[in-house]
């Protein structure tokens, strides 16, 4: 048995050395990225943070707010990760308020259980957050096709790195593009956002935990529901929408430090404001951020 194990160990050593080097190479090739960038932003002090999924990443420009703020939203980021960001922020900072994006996928999805689950590794590897211990989400080389990984590592070694993403200095990432086909995108997006009851319950509980934190740490919560194109709105089941709205309305009425800005059905955002059926483009983001900012300025709560 000892002989067998010795042989196995000697056989495996080169494999582990190779995998270790390969992992380091892949991580290096993946730097800098929007996750590490946002994590670094937390080292400075701010009055507010923006949390949420791609609707907030693309649609809320922290740079345009009258308060010092950063955008910690990311693609497919579910509310449980928003909570982790918030907890990490509260360890070092005293926030005045949190802008929390709450759109349909915030209500219905969970990143780890979605088709975008692979993004979980970005939090584990490039931020101070820790989502889980699943090896798949803690190693770069366990994600993606290896032929692609090898190409990426090769490009890094040869110095042919991909150009940096064009995210703004406070973490927002608007895109200056217009859509030609809302209907097809709306169909796919709405299917992706289709709810599972267990996630709705979980997500409601996480929202309540955020509200509890707001009381403990004495900050206000501005919940924003961003505009969506008519093609997308049509495909969201009425029951989901009305349940979500009544939840947020109820929360707003029961908590004096919570405000809900609902722009989901707002008609002042025309097709030219959208990148696709459920994301604002740069023009739409400017307009939406302006509306949020006006609210913050005009509200007595935030003027001090």
């Amino acid at each position, binding site marked *: *048995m000892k002989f*067998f194990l010795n042989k196995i160990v000697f*056989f495996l050593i080169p494999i582990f050395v190779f995998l270790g080097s390969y992992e380091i190479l892949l991580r290096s090739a993946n730097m800098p990225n929007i996750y590490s960038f946002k994590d670094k932003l937390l080292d400075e002090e701010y009055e507010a943070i923006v949390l949420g999924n791609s609707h907030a990443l693309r649609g809320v420009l922290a740079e345009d707010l009258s308060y010092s703020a950063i955008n910690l939203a990311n693609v497919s980021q579910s509310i449980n990760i928003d909570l982790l960001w918030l907890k990490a922020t509260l360890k070092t900072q005293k926030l005045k308020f949190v802008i929390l994006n709450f759109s349909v996928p915030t209500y219905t999805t969970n990143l780890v259980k979605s088709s975008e689950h692979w993004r979980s590794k970005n939090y584990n590897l490039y931020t101070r957050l820790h989502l889980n211990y699943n*090896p*798949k989400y803690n190693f770069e080389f*366990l994600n993606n096709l*290896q*032929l692609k990984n090898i190409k990426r590592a090769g490009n890094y070694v040869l110095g042919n790195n991909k150009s940096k993403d064009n995210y703004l200095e406070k973490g927002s990432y608007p895109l200056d593009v217009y859509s030609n086909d809302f209907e097809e995108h709306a169909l796919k997006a709405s299917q992706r956002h289709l709810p599972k009851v267990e996630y709705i319950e979980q997500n409601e509980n996480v929202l309540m935990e955020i509200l509890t934190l707001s009381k403990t740490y004495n900050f206000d919560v501005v919940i924003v529901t961003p505009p969506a194109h008519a093609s997308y709105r049509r495909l969201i089941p009425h029951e989901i929408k009305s349940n979500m709205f009544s939840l947020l309305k109820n929360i707003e009425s029961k908590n004096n430090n919570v405000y809900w800005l609902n722009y989901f059905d707002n008609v002042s955002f025309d097709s030219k404001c959208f990148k696709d059926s459920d994301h604002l483009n740069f023009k739409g983001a400017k307009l939406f951020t302006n509306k949020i900012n006006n609210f913050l300025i005009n509200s007595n709560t935030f003027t001090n």
Partner: protein
Amino acid sequence: MLFNSIDFAVFLPLVFFLYWFVFQKHLKAQNALIVIASYTFYGWWDWRFLSLILFSSIVDYTVGLQLQKTDIPKKRKFLLWVSIVINIGFLGFFKYFDFFVDNFVNAFSFFGYQIPSTSLNIILPVGISFYTFQTLSYTIDVYKKELKPTKDFVVFSAFVSFFPQLVAGPIERATNLLPQFYKQRQFNYKNAVLGLRQILWGLFKKIVIADNCSVIANEIFNNSTSFGGTSLVLGAVMFAFQIYGDFSGYSDIAIGTSRLFGFNLMKNFAFPYFSRDVAEFWRRWHISLSTWFRDYLYIPLGGSKGGVLMKVRNTFIIFIISGFWHGANWTFIVWGFLNALYFLPLLLRNKNRVHTGDIAENSLLPTFKELRGMMLTFSLTILAWIFFRAENISHAIQYISDLFTGLIDYTNYLETYNLLRDFGPALIVVFIIFILVEWSGRHTEFAINRLTNNRFLNIFFYYLILFLIFIYSGKPQEFIYFQF
């Protein structure tokens, strides 16, 4: 838990360590560990269905003991039927209920009667067809007094749920596997090395061959109407290699894993695509199922001993039931029917046991006659695989009729060339090497059973296979036979 997953890569060494280092001197503890590990392995997929395995184990364990207590034929027959009805009842409910209801409703609507469909959209428990047949074989063997029933429930549970072969076989006979649980297992270096080698080859077949062939096969089968004849031929060939790599790969991993724990499972594949006729193919493909049907269905029905009509009847019964075992779809029944048609002429002319040895037994290359037989058998098999893979009968018929369209059209060949280009030249080379390695190892239990005498060359070969597995691994894909 999938064999080709990180979970299993952690699970296997952990169980191995506990088995040989913690419980080495305690046979009962080792058996209990196997049961716990097996239930964990299965529960990883869906713990709710563990109750089915447990219930099935309790039923057959009890029936076995009761059979030993009585010699009254009527009572023994009754006990046997209790086991058959419960086991086949579970299988029938979970696997075939919706199929029968749908067909019943369709049949009535054909005659103008509309009755509401009550399909239950039942989840098919993974591996139910495999462990049901395994437990049934135990009860039948005890009934036939070919086996003494076990009094140790842990041993019996270990036999039913033994994790390497629980979800996709080989379907073990109690006469082979059960006694191995009674014997003190000794670690055997050579056997363990052989086991690891077989696991490696199984992973290669699954990840490099099957999963990559599946990309093209799925693309072509899912959009078959938009492809020309040559591409459809390519799709069918790719599926043939997908299902072989997938299923025989699983069997290799299962047998190799068992070796690591000191168990010997039966051989399940013996290079079936090198068969020279269909009868030989069926002696080499999914051997554990073919022999199960032979021993528990074909022979009790009279086998090939009766007259022509009896031979014909028995052949159709065994092949059609074998097809239906694979899934609740008419496509599997037609697949079985086609194979019966292929097999029958050989049986009736007494030529079904012409090729009992290996192809090119004493030479490097096959003779022209052998090659011709091999090509014909492979072509017939591929034709039947189309039914196996198709969504429904009309899809299969459409696919086959389209096979012969546009064969003289240049653009067709260009389309097929583009598909192969997407497959990648490097992968085509790997594919050819795979066939050559399989050919060179055709006289052994699995292709890389015997390597060279040069240790360094062998180690280089292992690293090369691991590297190819690593390079061509993508998202872990389920094994096809899990759905059966």
